[in-house]
């Protein structure tokens, strides 16, 4: 019995089918449910922010209080002093962080989506084998391969250079996986054929037909990649102070122990801001481009 028959039978049995239309009460229930669930995702953030305003004695209470009782901006006010004691000016770390995050994200998205396009629309042999490899590769997270990877980094002379930030993400498979799935579902062959008949070469097709069509996916990747690279700490791979990025500064501050716990939280809160900005910027266009996700077959 197929699902269709099942429901037809069921409907025949029930003489009066209850019609579902959302009432005001339904609307309120919907919002209430979403608020309840949303609280669970929002509370940790509030907790972080509230902790960053706690004076020292409140930080030491166990079990910790959720909200701060006597807020102080001391944790933030002390940051310039802590920064001043760094050997390299803070601006250098900021330039490194922003530059590396931006450059790596752009290169990564291009490499991954070109590969995804090639796997989903190319004609060469072994495409399926490559895609199975991608799925297999998804199973590995960075830590598992840390030691062998480190050996390769040092053999290639990447240790203690900017390349250590930029090159390793190239091997990531998440972008290729998501990209391939999305291109297959949303970029019709007819569209590509039409572009080719109009005389566009493959690079042109990729850049001006495929990329705009798959905007949601590259905005999503943009967000993830930026987030990961922004907060990455390449431990043991960067030694020169001039090449370090902001999360490493945070680590130095946290190393101050309990007395610095408030400041550590303050820095953590500040560090959260750029990914949230990237999200807000991409979110509006994600929503917009998802709803008009292009031609349907």
């Amino acid at each position, binding site marked *: 019995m*197929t*699902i*269709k028959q099942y429901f037809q039978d069921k409907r025949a049995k029930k003489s009066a089918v209850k*019609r*579902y239309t959302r009432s005001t009460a339904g*609307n309120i229930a*919907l*919002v209430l*449910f979403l608020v309840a*669930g949303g609280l*669970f*995702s929002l*509370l*940790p953030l509030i907790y972080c922010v509230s902790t960053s305003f706690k004076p020292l004695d409140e*930080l030491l209470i166990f*079990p*910790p*209080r*959720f909200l701060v009782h006597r807020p102080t901006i001391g944790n933030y006010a002390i940051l310039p002093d802590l920064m001043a004691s760094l050997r390299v000016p803070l601006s250098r770390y900021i330039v490194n962080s922003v530059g590396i995050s931006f450059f790596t994200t752009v290169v990564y998205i291009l*490499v*991954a989506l*070109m*590969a995804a396009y*090639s796997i989903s629309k*190319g*004609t060469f042999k072994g495409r399926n084998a490559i895609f199975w*490899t991608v*799925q297999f590769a*998804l*199973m*590995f*997270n960075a*830590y*598992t*391969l840390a*030691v*062998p990877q480190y*050996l390769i980094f040092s053999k290639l002379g990447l240790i203690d250079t900017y390349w250590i930030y930029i090159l*390793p993400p*190239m*091997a990531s*498979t998440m972008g*290729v996986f998501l990209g391939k799935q999305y291109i297959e579902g949303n970029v019709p062959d007819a569209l590509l054929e039409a572009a080719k008949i109009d005389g566009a070469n*493959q690079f042109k097709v990729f850049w001006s037909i495929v990329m705009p069509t798959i905007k949601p996916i590259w905005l*999503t990747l943009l*967000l*993830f990649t930026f987030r990961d690279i922004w*907060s990455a*700490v390449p431990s043991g791979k960067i030694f020169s102070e001039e090449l370090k990025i902001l999360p490493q500064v*945070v680590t130095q501050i946290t190393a101050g122990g*309990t007395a610095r716990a408030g400041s*550590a939280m303050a820095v*953590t809160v500040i560090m*959260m801001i750029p*990914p949230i900005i990237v*999200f807000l910027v991409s*979110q*509006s266009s994600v929503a917009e481009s998802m709803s008009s*996700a292009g031609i*349907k077959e």
Partner: protein
Amino acid sequence: MSKLKKAKGIEELKSRYGLMFILPWIIGLIIFFFIPIIQSIYYSFCQVVVTSDGVKTTWVGLDNYNEILNVDPNYEKWLEESILSFAYSLPIILVLSLILAMMLNQKFRGRIFFRALYFLPVIIATGKVMSYIFTTTDEDLASMGVSGGMAAGMISVEDLTSALNMGPEIAEFVSQAINNIFNLIWSCGIQIVLFLAGLQSIPASLYEASKVEGATKWEEFWFITFPMLSRITLLVGIFTMVELFVNERAPLVEQVYGKMRGGQYDISSAMIWFYFLIACVIMGIAIFFFTKFVMKRYEA
């Protein structure tokens, strides 16, 4: 270029472009992924000693696997825990994120705000923040040097339960439950976004037609929404399975990390490889059944 076209045919040319597009990624994959992976498999059959002048390996065959499966009494326990938590998390996460995505897909005021809210964990859930939230044990607290611990601090569960005259077991249960809800909601962000994208790609005309035919919301879900989402469900399913298996909070992965930090690369490689083997089998079975019985049914 035109000469090439004539000589080799358009198919050949297309495949050449295809290879060109994929080349940069393939090179990265080989250098930073395949070589390390082969190394890591090799380590699992070796005794590995890290010395100042590099890594020394001695071939020991299956000794490491024998050690974890027959000698170490804990390995099977961790394996079982990991698979169990996987088995109950996967359906809950999939159903919960689909429900939330469908709710967020409704038209109501402030839905952009709510979408952002549910996606928030994905954005800020990195390293530090996560460790603050999921820290519940005392050793963890001590090692962090902060009296943090989200679930412990958020709502004073102990106060609540003692006020209501409940036993410590119930208090334990309540705080465990709160932790689990956190865990789940915080694992749903990406899934919700993927489902949302899928929902929005369903043509509105299908729903209009079904409304004219007088279908109930329930039928609408099973005849339109669910079939149209079957591809994206597979995608989300694979993504979630992978997340659950390699998640740093999976009991077995946690142990492997511990051993790696301790420098036991041989044993930890064997541990993770055996785990991956089992994970791959489970995922393979799940994908097989989904494509065979769910997707095939609608494609006909």
